[in-house]
């Protein structure tokens, strides 16, 4: 576990920068989008964070299968939970944005659907784990499913949404997260500020939860 403090301070600084500059900074004036364009710093960064956490989780699952240390299983589980949290936040910030641009919180857009399905896949991971009582078996089968789910996540959120028509920015000629068409002023907040800031916050929350789990385990073994 990372015990240094510098990255926590960095995380707070980056988030303060993101939030102040994100709400006050200049943004290009566009029809329909107007000020909702600032959601880039929150909504899109949530998905980046979710992917970071899921990736770390799957790395720990692989490590668990290779070494069999129970601590890796706790890491994998907590990182997956953190990813789910940020996935939910991404969905919520997205639907709030959609309310003001598309006119409804939920409009069965393919990207909304695929994001929801991706979360269902990970909820199933938690259900699967809870369905077993044997610790060792739960950890091993959970790790296997986690790797499988991660592989299936790619078609769900990266391939299929790109193949169907969608209202979401990034398709059908809408502007999107693209290195070519992002405004340079927004780029200065998004890449150095929002993405690492939220990702660090996700890792921070997860490490706290891991510490809690480890303490609970210790208490259990001493009781």
């Amino acid at each position, binding site marked *: 576990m990372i015990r240094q403090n510098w990255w926590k301070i960095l995380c707070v600084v980056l988030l303060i920068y993101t939030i102040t500059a994100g709400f006050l900074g200049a943004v290009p004036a566009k029809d329909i989008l107007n000020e909702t364009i600032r959601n880039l710093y929150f909504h899109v960064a949530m998905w980046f964070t979710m992917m970071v956490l899921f990736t770390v989780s799957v790395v720990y699952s692989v490590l668990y299968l290779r070494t069999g240390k129970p601590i890796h299983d706790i890491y994998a589980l907590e990182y997956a939970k953190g990813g789910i949290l940020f996935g939910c936040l991404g969905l919520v910030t997205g639907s709030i944005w959609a309310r003001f641009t598309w006119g409804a919180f939920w409009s069965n857009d393919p990207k909304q659907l695929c994001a929801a399905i991706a979360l269902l896949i990970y909820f199933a991971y938690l259900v699967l784990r809870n369905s077993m009582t044997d610790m060792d078996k739960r950890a091993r*089968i959970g790790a296997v499913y986690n790797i*499988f789910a991660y592989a299936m996540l790619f078609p769900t959120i990266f391939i299929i949404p790109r*193949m169907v028509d969608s209202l979401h920015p990034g398709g059908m000629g809408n502007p999107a997260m693209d290195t070519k068409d992002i405004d340079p002023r927004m780029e200065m907040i998004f890449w150095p500020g929002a993405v690492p800031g939220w990702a660090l916050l996700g890792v921070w929350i997860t490490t706290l939860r891991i510490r809690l789990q480890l303490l609970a385990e210790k208490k259990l073994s001493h009781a």
Partner: protein
Amino acid sequence: MYGVLLYVASTIFVLYLAMGQPEGDVWKGLFWMIQLFVCVNAVAKSFLQEGRGRLLYFYSITGPANFILSKLLFNALLMLSMSLLSLGLFVLMLGDPMPEPVQFVLISCLGGMSLSLVFTFLAAIAARAQQSAALMAILGFPLVIPQLLLLSKISNIAFADVLQGGLGWMIAVLAALDVLIIALSLILFPFLWKD
């Protein structure tokens, strides 16, 4: 085996009684839903019905890679025949709205096999956790939705009168997904196997 056959026939018959002869879109949607449920039933059976003794016997004669490979192959063939059978029954009872029947037969074969691959691996996971039948649905349905979306996109092409682009690309994605699932099953199954 006969149970699955009866399941296919009676579900499609119930559908016919409830829906009559639906339009192309509804027909297609119903067809893939039936495929999904047939797959859950047929494939789940193949794993969950193995007794402890039989598994032990397999364990003694072969390795995990061979075992999962043969399971995948068997289930793919099973689903292939079930797809063709249910396609035949669909045409017989719910009518035939397809302008391009040959294409759709091929697509449904591919679709049935893709579904069976995912469910074989999930059945292997679910069989290790006890309450398997309900677990199969919880694990499986979110995981197959991408495949089903892709399949219904592909089958749009067989239903459309005008030729649409992108068919080869989508079939390539589906095939790549299948290869991915087979590879993952081969890598991950040994961990489910040893106990």
